[in-house]
């Protein structure tokens, strides 16, 4: 083995500092409480906008699932709506066809089926990159949509499956017309899933994912089972997207084939890019900002909204590659540098 260099005080201190960095990397920092406080705050401050709040939280969850594969593993896909849709339809169909009205278990089943689909699909398509991978993911989502249209007797086609009913949450909380209970339901699910995702991202597995994103060739050379890692994270991400889809069905009591739209896959990617990839909270910032802007501007003028989104994308790519979170981080660094000088 290598000889140990003589350890003087400075050496030991540097070593400890380095160790500390790795050991503490995953600790919770106080700014991380902000998004949750805000979310809870909205519950009390905007009781009449709970239905909208629901959809925002669901999109945050969807964007979070995409961040796992896009931000951390570097997989570029434009077909993630496929898994959202699978979760949505599984949740709808077990209620309609099997009369299963317990929501939480329905949620888990939706997520599980979507996750399994992700594992199978991922096993095939993650051997490829670039345009090939992009087209395969787009084709998969589109195939599901078209197949769903083929059997519109089951799926309700583009008109959808209305009138789903659910038992009260945990057997106790009844749903109200204004979506208050649903909002808290989605928020709790989001928090639980987020906790798991955060653990994954700071784990050695998460480290390996960033390694794959940074230099896949070297990962092969150091013995990493790259394909297995990618399929694993893809399956997990698909499962989470499926949970988001199931929540969509349950909180809207309605689902249509538009959940598989290419536009949906593109939209969630835009949200994530806007917020910033690879940092988990980018999903929050991006989804919330996008949904609010869309809500406001598309009512004003759908054409201006579309132009604005396009312009925003161009500007982000050219000038703010790390998204809003990156801008915030840079501003924060600038501020702390000014303070210390």
């Amino acid at each position, binding site marked *: 083995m290598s000889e140990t260099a003589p350890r003087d005080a400075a050496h030991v201190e540097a070593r400890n500092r380095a160790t500390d960095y790795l050991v503490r990397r995953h600790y919770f920092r106080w700014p991380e409480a902000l998004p949750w406080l805000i979310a809870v705050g909205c519950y009390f401050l905007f009781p009449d906008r709970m239905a909208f709040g629901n959809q925002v939280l669901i999109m945050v969850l969807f964007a979070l699932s995409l961040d796992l594969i*896009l931000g951390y593993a570097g997989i570029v896909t434009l077909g993630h709506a496929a898994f959202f849709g699978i979760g949505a339809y599984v949740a709808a169909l077990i209620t309609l066809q099997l009369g299963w009205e317990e929501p939480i278990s329905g949620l888990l089943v939706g997520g599980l089926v979507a996750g399994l689909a992700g594992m199978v699909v991922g096993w095939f398509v993650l051997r490829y990159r670039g*345009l*090939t991978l992009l087209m395969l993911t787009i084709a998969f989502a*589109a195939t599901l949509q078209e197949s769903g249209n083929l059997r519109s007797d089951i799926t309700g086609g583009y008109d959808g499956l209305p009138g789903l009913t659910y038992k009260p949450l945990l057997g106790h909380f009844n749903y109200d017309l204004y979506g208050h209970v649903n909002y808290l339901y989605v928020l709790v699910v989001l928090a639980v899933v987020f906790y798991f995702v955060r653990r994954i991202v700071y784990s050695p597995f998460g480290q390996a994912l960033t390694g794959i994103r940074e230099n896949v060739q070297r990962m092969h050379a150091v013995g990493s089972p790259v394909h297995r890692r990618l399929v694993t994270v893809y399956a997990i991400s698909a499962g989470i997207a499926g949970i988001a889809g199931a929540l969509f069905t349950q909180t809207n009591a309605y689902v249509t084939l538009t959940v598989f739209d290419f536009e949906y896959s593109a939209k969630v990617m835009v949200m994530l890019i806007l917020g910033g990839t690879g940092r988990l909270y980018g999903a929050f910032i991006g989804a919330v900002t996008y949904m609010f802007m869309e809500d406001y501007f598309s009512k004003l003028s759908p054409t201006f909204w579309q132009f604005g989104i*396009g312009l925003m994308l*161009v500007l982000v*790519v050219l000038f703010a590659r790390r998204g809003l979170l990156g801008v915030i981080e840079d501003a924060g660094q600038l501020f702390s540098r000014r303070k210390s000088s």
Partner: protein
Amino acid sequence: MSHAAEIVVSILFDGLAYAMFLFITSVGLSITMGLMGFVNLAHGAFAMCGGYFVVSLTRSLGVPFVPSLIIASVAVGVISVPFERYLYRRLYKSTDLEQVLLTIGLAFMAIATFTYFYGPIPKSVPLPHWLTGHVNLGFRSFPSYRVFLIAIGAGLIAVLWYGFEQTNIGAKIRAAVDNRRMAESVGINVDRLFTLTFALGSGLAALGGGLAIQLFGLTPSFAVLYLVLFLIVVAVGGLGSLKGTLLAALVIGILDTGGKYAFPVAGNLFVYGITVAVLLIKPAGFFGRE
């Protein structure tokens, strides 16, 4: 002619016309992606622009259809040059994702702009007399417009083939697609080559857009609606390959037409099925490299 044969001929004919449209619009995308590795999702927007130019030229300025096609193609080709030199060029070394996002952003901006000026209602073009109606090719008569489309497609294929295989410029493009570094080191000005190819590809896309009006009607959403289809043709055919784009266009054009006739409920299932099947067996497409 027996009934079954009639149907087959119809499907082949319509499929061929559709394939020509796909080829004309997609070939530019395939060559530029193969040449520069740049994912240009604004390609559909160039096609859409071409279509609207033709609409304005024919309706507002009274220019006849065929000259309008030519003018529109050249105009869009010329307009695409500053985009390439001042915007796209900055991203040649960027990741695929960044290129995708930038060009989708441009496409959205284009759609919104054209919606503002032309409105969302589908437009049509006034055709010259000889393009409406039918043409008798001996054993059957066919719609003149589609015959025209096939003729243009065939002519373009011949011109492009000659250009690629027999001219100096074509050789340079093929060399640069094959191995850019090597091409640069033997003195080929790849930057200028790309601007030229990009302009040509965008011009052809505009031509395709103009030709598509009669087939599908024109709305600003054309830019993204058909984008996935163009990407499929390019991916299935193989980046940077003229042969590949043609073969993919034919396969998709004919099988999609046939599939929609036999099983109309299945919609686009055939196209996506072909895509998945080809890409899983040959991930680089029919004639793609590696």
